[in-house]
Structures are given as structure tokens and as C-alpha cells.
């Protein structure tokens, strides 16, 4: 009679221990992930500001957003544009990874130089690129004028045509090294004997790339895409510092718009509704990317 009782007490003690080890992390995730998600949804159906009691208004916020708010649509398209530009960066990174993976001298140095920009502070990177794009003395305009490519300097960040591409270029520049390292890891995991077998079968280098390298890299490539998108906090920092969403709303993205709605216009309720749409967009893109990559991009090996 005593033994099972003792065993039970022991396993309860163990459970208490395990849960108390998990509790602090769970609390943080509850406070800063789960609760915000629920609160956003709740807030999006309300009219509320810090000084007034909340009133349930149904879909009014969503109605305003979808049918009356042009800035929202502009921000949505710009966000999709930035997400859609990731493949350009990934393609360049794929090329660089293939080059760096060859057995040339000094490849570690190249690798370091290309990776260097990624871990750096994005605010500083944004200031660097503001200066590069400067109308009067920016390097890009200077070179373009030297080579007679343009008659007069282009005000990149103040131009409705050029502002968004400029921000995207800076974003790709910073993410390039990260993409390259992920793809490089994928490349190094491809067994070498596959290539030998294909070479014996008479496949040339291009066919080997198309038939072996690319299919086996698919998970790495989509991992780049998903991580690049989910971690694109960088794009907030870049846009905020480089253009502040301007000129007009030419470089407004959903995050900067949410920030402005919440913290300069104090429209928390409406900002929450925009956040819900933004979240659904990210979820949809991730889900699609995951399906296209064969179902395990960003998957965690649980056991």
C-alpha cells in the first residue's frame, strides 16, 4: 500500500518541478505572444482609446480599412512588394553561395565580408544607405553622373518611383549574407557522391545543378524565405529611418502604418484591426511557402 503512494508523490513532485521550470518561459510567451494576439482580435471589433470605455462596433474598423482607407492598401501592396523582393536576394545569394563553395583560395575571407552586414544594427545600416542614396553627394548619384547615366541627380528617397526600390535594395543588401550562409549550409549537406554518379552518367555541370543541387536546396531556399519574411523587423527599422514611410505614403508598409496609427494618432483599435490583417497575410504567405517547399520549411525536429 505504501509503495504506489510513494511513487505517486514522487511523480507529482517531478511534474511540479518540470512545470515550474517551464513556467517563466510560458509566462513570457503568454504575455507577449498569446495575449497580444487575442487582444488584437478583441480590440479590432471595438471602438476604444485609453481614456474611453470600449464599445463593441462589429466590423466597422474592417469596413473603414478595406473600403475607405487608401493608405492601408498602399501599405499592404508595399509590404507584399518587400516580401516579393526576397526571391531576388535569395537568387543572388544562391549564386554567391555556389561561388564561395568552390575550392578557391580566400573563400573564408569572401564569406566573412559578405556576411558582415547581417548582424549589424539596422538603424545604422539605414543611415548608411540614406547617405549612399543622397541626392547631392551620395555615392550612387555621383557614380551615375560620372558615367553620364543621368543628366541630373535622382532624389532617390524623395521620389515616388525610386523610394521603395531604394529601401528594398538596402534590405537585400543587409539580408544577403544571411541567405548565403543558410544556402551554403544546405549545399554542404548534399552528398558529393550524387555529383560523381551524375558525372559518370554524362550529365554536364548545368544539368547537375538543375537536377541535383536545386531540388535538394529547396528546403534551405524556402527556409530563407520564411525566416527572411518573419524576421523582417529590419524593414521597419529601414523604412522608419530612411524615409519614415514617405514621400507621401510611397514606402509605407503595414508595420510602420500600425506604428503610426497606434503611437502618433492613438488609434489603438484601428491599428489592432490592421494588425490582424497583417498577421493573416504573414500566416498565409508562410503556409504557402511551406507547402511549396515540400512541407517542412522552418520545421523543428521535435524528437
Amino acid at each position, binding site marked *: 500500500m505504501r509503495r504506489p503512494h510513494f511513487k505517486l508523490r514522487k511523480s507529482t513532485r517531478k511534474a511540479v*518541478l*518540470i512545470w515550474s*521550470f*517551464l513556467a*517563466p*518561459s*510560458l509566462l*513570457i*510567451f503568454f504575455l*507577449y*505572444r*498569446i*495575449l*497580444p*494576439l487575442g487582444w*488584437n482580435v478583441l*480590440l479590432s471589433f471595438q471602438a476604444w482609446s485609453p481614456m474611453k470605455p470600449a464599445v463593441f462596433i462589429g466590423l466597422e474598423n474592417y469596413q473603414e480599412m478595406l473600403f475607405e482607407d487608401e493608405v492601408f492598401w498602399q501599405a499592404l501592396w508595399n509590404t507584399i512588394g518587400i516580401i516579393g523582393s526576397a526571391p531576388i536576394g535569395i537568387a543572388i545569394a544562391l549564386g554567391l553561395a555556389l*561561388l564561395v563553395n568552390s575550392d578557391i583560395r*580566400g573563400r573564408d575571407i*569572401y564569406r566573412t*565580408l*559578405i556576411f*558582415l*552586414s547581417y*548582424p549589424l*544594427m*539596422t*538603424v*545604422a545600416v539605414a*543611415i*548608411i*544607405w*540614406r*547617405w*549612399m542614396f543622397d541626392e*547631392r*553627394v551620395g555615392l550612387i548619384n555621383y557614380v551615375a553622373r560620372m558615367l553620364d547615366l543621368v543628366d541630373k541627380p535622382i532624389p532617390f528617397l524623395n521620389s515616388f518611383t525610386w523610394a521603395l526600390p531604394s529601401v528594398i535594395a538596402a534590405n537585400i*543588401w543587409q539580408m544577403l549574407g*544571411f541567405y548565403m*550562409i*543558410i544556402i551554403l*549550409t544546405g549545399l554542404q549537406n548534399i552528398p558529393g557522391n550524387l555529383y560523381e554518379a551524375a558525372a559518370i552518367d554524362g550529365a554536364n555541370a548545368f544539368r547537375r545543378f538543375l537536377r541535383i543541387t536545386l531540388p535538394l536546396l529547396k528546403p534551405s531556399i524556402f*527556409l530563407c524565405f520564411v*525566416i527572411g519574411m*518573419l524576421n523582417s*523587423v529590419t524593414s*521597419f*527599422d529601414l523604412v*522608419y*529611418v530612411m524615409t519614415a514611410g514617405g514621400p507621401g505614403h510611397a514606402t509605407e508598409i503595414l508595420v510602420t502604418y*500600425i*506604428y503610426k496609427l*497606434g*503611437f502618433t494618432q492613438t488609434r*489603438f483599435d484601428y*491599428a489592432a484591426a490592421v*494588425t490582424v490583417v497583417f498577421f493573416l497575410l*504573414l500566416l498565409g504567405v508562410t503556409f504557402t511557402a511551406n507547402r511549396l517547399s515540400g512541407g517542412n520549411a*522552418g520545421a*523543428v525536429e521535435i524528437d
Partner: protein
Amino acid sequence: MGKYPRWPIHLALLAASFVMLVPFYWVLKTSISGENIFAYPPSIIPRDPNPFYYVDVWYAIPFARFFLNSVVVSVITIVANVVLNAMAGYSLTQRFLGKSAVLMLFLSCMMIPFQTTIIPAYLITGKLGLLDSYLGLALPMFSTIICIFVFKASFDAIPRSLIDAARIDGLSDWNIIWKVMMPLAKSAMATNVILSFIWSWNNFMWPLIATRSADMQTLPLGLARFLSYQEDSTGALYAFCIMVLAPGILLFLLAQREFVQGLTSGAAKG
């Protein structure tokens, strides 16, 4: 593999390296030039180089204060991260009721990026009374799911017999984590330290939202504010920029292997 000319590869990689480095050079050049930075044509090599702009920075802003704030927030974040993630990672190596639910919860939380939580995160931190404090700046980053899984993988690789032996010797679970497992999970710890350092040191959005007083600004915030007050009328902005970047670049070059390993294992795991 076969013989092929190497020079086109070098040429392409040199071009890429050039593109990656030139922006740094352009800002460095501006920060040490003694003349009017808006003079056209811009000089390629700084004429009359001098450190005046670096001196200006010290007078224009409380650089030491911003630096201190950044260091304090980063240290709190790193310590909390290692402790909390190691504990949670250890729990996940055990068998217990509700484990699969916890795993599901962690995986779904990973799908909620921080940018989609800013409004409630601000309200919650306000309710906790932590706005404009070091703790409030660090709290949302106290625990990170990626690093929990990095710890779990590392703990899983430790032979069970070692843990059983420690338990027979009468060590508590707390001591087993810190005295037996952590010394064997050094690379997981390095990964976690580096990732949480990068995240907190570079973080801009959260300090922007959660600080009000000038005293609490961290370096990225100070840099952005400096830009908005002074516009880019002075070379001091670029000197400030270099001062902020230099420690990061130095750290990266010193601990390059750990950086790359940390970032890829962080990414590959989640």
C-alpha cells in the same frame, strides 16, 4: 573537381565584396573629412582627415548614457535568456503529461512575429508599470523559442547515464542543469548568448515604443533621434554611426565562428 579557370570566380566575389564594403567606406570617409560634407563633387579619399566630428558627438548627445542603457538592457536579456531557456529546454528533455501541448504551443508562438504584437505589448507593459524602465525594455525578449530548442537538442545529446549518476549522487535537478549539463552544452549557450545579444543590442522598434524619457534611450534609438533632430546636416551623424557600428564589427570578427554557427543553428532549428 575538374580544372576550370579560377579568375572569373575571384572577379565575381571581389565585386560582391566591394558592394558589401563600399557603403561602410563612404560613411567612414564622411565621418573623418574635415571639409563641408556637402561639397560637390564628393571626395573619394578624405581631404584633410581629422576626428572633429567624433568630438562633436560627445558634445551633442549623451553617448555614454546611451551606451550604458544598451549594455544594461542587453545584459539583462542575455542572463534571463540563458537561465529561462536552459530551464525550459531541460523540461522538454523529460517525459511529462502535457508535453506535446507545450511543444505545440511553442511552435505556434513562433508564428507570431513581434511586429504583430506591438499595440497590446505596449498596453500590457504599461499595465505592469514597466514602461520606460530597463526591465520593461528587456522583458519581451526574456525567453526565445529557438534557443529553447537549441538547448533541448544539446541536452538530448548528453548520455542519460551521466544524469542518472548525478541523481544517485544526490544532486537536485537545479544542480544537475547547472553543474552537470551546462558545462556540456557550451555551444548551445554560446548560440543563445550571441542571438540574444544581437536581438537586444540592435532592437529599435521596442525601445522606440516603450521609452519616453531621453535618459532611457538605447543606442539605436539615440541614433535615430539624432537623425531626426539634426537632419543629416552634420558629419557628426556619421561619426556617431561609426561609433555604434565599430564595437559590433569588432565583436563579429573576433567571434565569427560562433556568430555564424549561432545564426545558422538558430535559423535551421526554427
